[in-house]
């Protein structure tokens, strides 16, 4: 058995989901006997069998990854409850094992996965999906680059029908539920500070009681998830026209095309939008959302 074969066997066992009692399962999900597999690879000692020795790593794997998802998605957890959250997390991680060297990206594929698996959020699929989109956007903008901002002088010299470039830390979300309020209320109750380091066996995140938050009723909102002063992420609600305009601009459309798209999308009037353009751009510019083009 060469190094690669051995490592593939060991990781396969470590990634097998735990039993309900949080122990290593006796058979793999596809029915192979774990003891036989492990006995061939791992030495026993005077206190632990081969199975028990590898079980330590199996449990640590799941506790570490589940704790990480619990920290990253407290909003989803509050919506569906701890037990369903764990079930969802195990299914997600089994389908989509981490392909990144950093745990930061563990939830990066949760939204598309959840769209294919609404069975894990049967009662409130849209609310759960909205929360996942918001929580991932929040994680993603937190450590994006801040590029040189467009100055007032740059703005005045853009020409008649300019294209705008945005900071990497701006995300636009159209949401069916006001999940921003829910997430902020959850955060106020939880300690957001944690750290990840070296060879530490992480404790599982403590569970908060289910249904301790009032879940919101449907209400369409348009949100910019962004960052200010390189510190915290912020949620800024936008008017539908402003959202549509920004989204089109972010997609690389010219200003006139973006105005047209906003009008079409909101069934509004061009005059209503152009009337507000100055204020919107002044605000977005003061928030530092526009950056200089890469070529400059």
């Amino acid at each position, binding site marked *: 058995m*060469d190094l690669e074969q051995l*490592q593939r066997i060991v*990781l396969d066992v470590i990634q097998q989901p735990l039993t309900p009692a949080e122990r290593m399962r006796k058979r793999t999900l596809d029915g192979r006997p774990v003891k036989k597999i492990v006995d061939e690879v791992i030495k026993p000692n005077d206190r632990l069998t081969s199975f028990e020795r590898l079980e*330590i790593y199996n449990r640590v794997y799941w506790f570490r990854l589940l704790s990480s998802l619990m920290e990253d998605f407290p909003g989803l957890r509050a919506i569906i409850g701890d037990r369903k959250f764990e079930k969802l997390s195990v299914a997600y991680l089994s389908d989509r094992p981490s392909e990144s060297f*950093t745990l930061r990206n563990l939830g990066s594929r949760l939204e598309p996965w959840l769209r294919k698996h609404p069975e894990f959020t049967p009662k409130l699929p849209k609310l759960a999906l909205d929360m996942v989109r918001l929580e991932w956007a929040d994680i993603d903008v937190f450590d*994006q680059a801040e590029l040189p901002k467009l100055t007032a002088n740059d703005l005045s010299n853009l020409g008649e029908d300019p294209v705008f470039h945005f900071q990497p830390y701006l995300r636009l979300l159209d949401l069916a539920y006001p999940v921003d309020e829910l997430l902020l209320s959850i955060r106020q109750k939880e300690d957001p500070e944690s*750290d990840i*380091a070296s060879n530490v*066996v992480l404790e599982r995140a403590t569970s908060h009681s289910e249904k301790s938050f009032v879940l919101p009723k449907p209400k369409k909102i348009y949100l910019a998830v962004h960052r200010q002063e390189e510190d915290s992420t912020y949620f800024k609600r936008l008017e539908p026209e402003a959202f549509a305009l920004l989204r089109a601009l972010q997609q690389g459309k010219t200003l006139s095309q973006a105005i047209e798209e906003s009008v079409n999308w909101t069934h509004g009037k061009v005059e209503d939008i152009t009337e507000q353009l100055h204020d919107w751009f002044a605000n977005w510019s003061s928030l530092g959302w526009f950056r200089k083009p890469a070529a400059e």
Partner: protein
Amino acid sequence: MPANRFNGYTDYGVGIGLRIPHYNHIFEKKPVVDWFEIISENFMIDGGRPLKVLDQILDQYRVVQHGVSMYFGSAEPLNREHLRRLKTLVKRTKTPWLTDHLCWGSVDGQYSHDLLPMPYTFEAARKTAEKIRQVRDFVEVPIAVENVSSYAEYHVSEMTEWEFLNEVVEQADCGILLDVNNIYVSSQNHNFNPFDYLNSIAPERVAQIHIAGHSKFEKYILDTHDHPVLDPVWDLYARAIELAGPTATLLEWDDRIPSFEEVHQEALKARKFHKGQQQPMQKNGLAAMNPLSNANANLYASEKARV
């Protein structure tokens, strides 16, 4: 000996890990600290608050990077994105040396996010050494590999852990981040004498030393980094300093983190071993320190609900 080519010919003293709960204390009180160790992966990002904090720290303190996911021992090729981001961070921190673990943790692009023990084979040593060389050539700073704590051993192993460590660092011509707590933990889990391990390593390759606390369970010991350093580990540290000289030392405290002062004071206990380094160690004392001489060493309290 403490300043050598594996730690960039520096003499850094006693440091602690840079941890979020201590940020306010550090920025408000500006405590005197020899150096901080950062977890590289926490700062291998494009922007935002973590890098702003790091830049503030770099203005006032010396920083050494410690990685947790390079996985020198994984059979698969190095992750280019990881390397690129690591090099960018190295340029930012100007770390005199770089450390990561002698372990594996990924297969076919899938990551365990754990420090999995190596099979101690000649094939593994050769492949691991080759990857260490590749990383060093790319990031252009000296590299020291850390011995990990482990809970399992493989049938295919052809040598002891310390023989494997020596084989790898010789072939890679790299340094050692000697974690004496990990040696102790593994010695208890695998029934070997930790002093045999210590006495076998090449002291001239020791770039840095880690000390930490661990947790005892009924049938094994876990490397939890959530306690003060325990006496058997201090005993090993004393021997390590005797062998390698007063080497750059770092206390790891990563869970249930107490106040900055408590962590720093615990770390600074290491200095007394540096001062006493000139005094010859008594052999009887060493024997008495051997944890295996304690018949109850492996009979610990019932398992916590942590693992």
